[in-house]
């Protein structure tokens, strides 16, 4: 894998910030897009743009075929055989569909849902919004590893992230799925940070639900997916109601279409699905194993070079971690560090990373985070370290 060559497919890297090339270290928030993805969407709009699902004329036949084959591609990409793929707006909406569609109906008062302190808000707030169910949180150790799951026979659902968007922790989801199933609970996996960065196979892991977003995996904004076991989907209500998800509508009432249609309503984000499909092609051409290896290797280099800095605190496990790296530079505020890095064209994220419970767990208000992807280079890691040196000087850390 050659990151220098890959970069050439990403037009944004021609961009200059304050006269310097953009060093984009915020892919965990959203990834950049290769020209192949942009071209696929252009092509759709220039040649086949039309609505789907009720096609009679040629271009709507094409649009339907493009939309449905994107669905099949997503299914293959995550190893979904006994699972439906439901397109959503993003990962967050996918989790809401599980909360509102499945949990509301299947988790009774006194029964519990297990989540954790390392979750993204999108995997916490939907469960809090449910009436009846008790919400339990697994803790996180000082080293960033997931603690024991507070599970018992009344647990109906375990909803955990595969990879922490802050700590880079890679949870042992196969073991968790097994444990959940042994307790009679289902396992919902937040794949927002894993699906873009490593090979994820819902069959092998044993996910009953998998949620993720296209925009973090080279795809466009506005498209995500919920992958759900087919027999579980039979036991699920729709989250949204309207056209497309119906079988027959009368003034008295409505019968619903079969899954996955039942769970998608209104005109879908067709170009979004087309773009996501092209993104998967791109990822598969590079190879998920290569992408994972590259990300881990950059992270190791970054840990070594940042780890040597004065007053630098790095969060998360030392080993077996994904390609996000959060840290604090002395008592400097993450916003100030990020602003000084931005001056050199280095884009990192600052703030609470939509993980306030985790911030509280580590006794901080915010962290600075660098995250890597297939287009990042060792030289960019070096620039990050240099920029942090300057941040320390400017902020008198």
């Amino acid at each position: 894998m050659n990151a220098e060559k890959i970069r050439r497919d990403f037009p944004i890297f021609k961009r200059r910030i304050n006269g310097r090339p953009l060093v984009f270290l915020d892919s965990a928030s959203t990834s950049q897009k290769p020209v192949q993805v942009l071209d696929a969407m252009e092509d759709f709009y220039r040649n086949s743009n039309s609505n789907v699902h009720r096609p009679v004329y040629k271009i709507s036949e094409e649009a339907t075929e493009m939309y449905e084959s994107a669905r099949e591609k997503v299914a293959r990409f995550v190893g979904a055989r006994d699972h439906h793929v439901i397109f959503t707006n993003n990962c967050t909406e996918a989790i809401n569909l599980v909360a509102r569609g499945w949990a509301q109906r299947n988790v009774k008062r006194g029964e519990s849902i297990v989540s954790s302190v390392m979750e993204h808000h999108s995997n916490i707030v939907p469960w809090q919004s449910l009436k009846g169910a008790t919400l339990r949180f697994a803790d996180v150790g000082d080293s960033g590893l997931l603690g024991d799951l507070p599970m018992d026979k009344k647990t109906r659902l375990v909803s955990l992230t595969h990879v922490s968007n802050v700590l880079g922790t890679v949870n042992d989801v196969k073991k968790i799925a097994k444990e959940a199933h042994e307790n009679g609970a289902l396992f919902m996996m937040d794949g927002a940070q894993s699906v873009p960065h490593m090979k994820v196979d819902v069959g092998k892991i044993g996910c009953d639900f998998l949620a993720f977003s296209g925009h973090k995996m080279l795809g466009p904004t506005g498209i995500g997916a919920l992958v759900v076991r087919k027999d579980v989907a039979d036991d699920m209500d729709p989250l949204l109601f309207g056209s497309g998800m119906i079988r027959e509508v009368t003034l008295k009432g409505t019968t619903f279409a079969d899954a996955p249609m039942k769970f998608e309503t209104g005109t879908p984000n067709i170009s979004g699905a087309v773009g996501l499909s092209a993104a998967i092609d791109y990822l598969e051409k590079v190879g998920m194993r290569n992408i994972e290896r590259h990300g881990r290797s950059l992270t190791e280099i970054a840990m070594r070079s940042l780890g040597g800095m004065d007053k630098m605190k790095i969060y998360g496990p030392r080993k077996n971690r994904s390609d996000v790296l959060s840290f604090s530079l002395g008592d400097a505020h993450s916003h100030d560090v990020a602003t000084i890095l931005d001056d050199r064209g280095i884009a990192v994220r600052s703030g609470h990373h939509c993980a306030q419970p985790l911030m509280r767990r580590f006794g901080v208000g915010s962290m600075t985070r660098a995250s890597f992807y297939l287009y990042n280079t060792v030289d960019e890691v070096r620039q990050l370290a240099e920029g942090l040196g300057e941040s320390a000087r400017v902020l008198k850390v």
Partner: protein
Amino acid sequence: MSLDMYAEEILDHYRNPKNFGKLDKPDVKVRELNPLCGDQYEFQVKVSDGKITDVKFNGDGCAISTASASILSEFIKGKKISELKKMEQKDLLNLLGIEVSPARIKCAMLAFNIVKKVVEESGKKK
């Protein structure tokens, strides 16, 4: 060219469908709707000695779905259930004798799916 779908024979079946109507006391009846377009048919059959001895269908749809229903009704009448169980999509397409465009394949398949269920139900009737 999609115009080729409207062959003389297809239009004949459409304008004058065979076995259109209802049976007196059907042994099996199956109704299905294509939710995308609202087309729907009901097939009714009589079963005896492992055979479909009589068939009628009713409902409403386009030329392609009507012709498909009409042709299928002719095809299954008098046939052994064990034989009909082996029927595949491509057999119907052969029977239709036209090239169905991808946009209209669901129209053609509506009656096929109903007949598949009819055959299955009929099998249970001994």
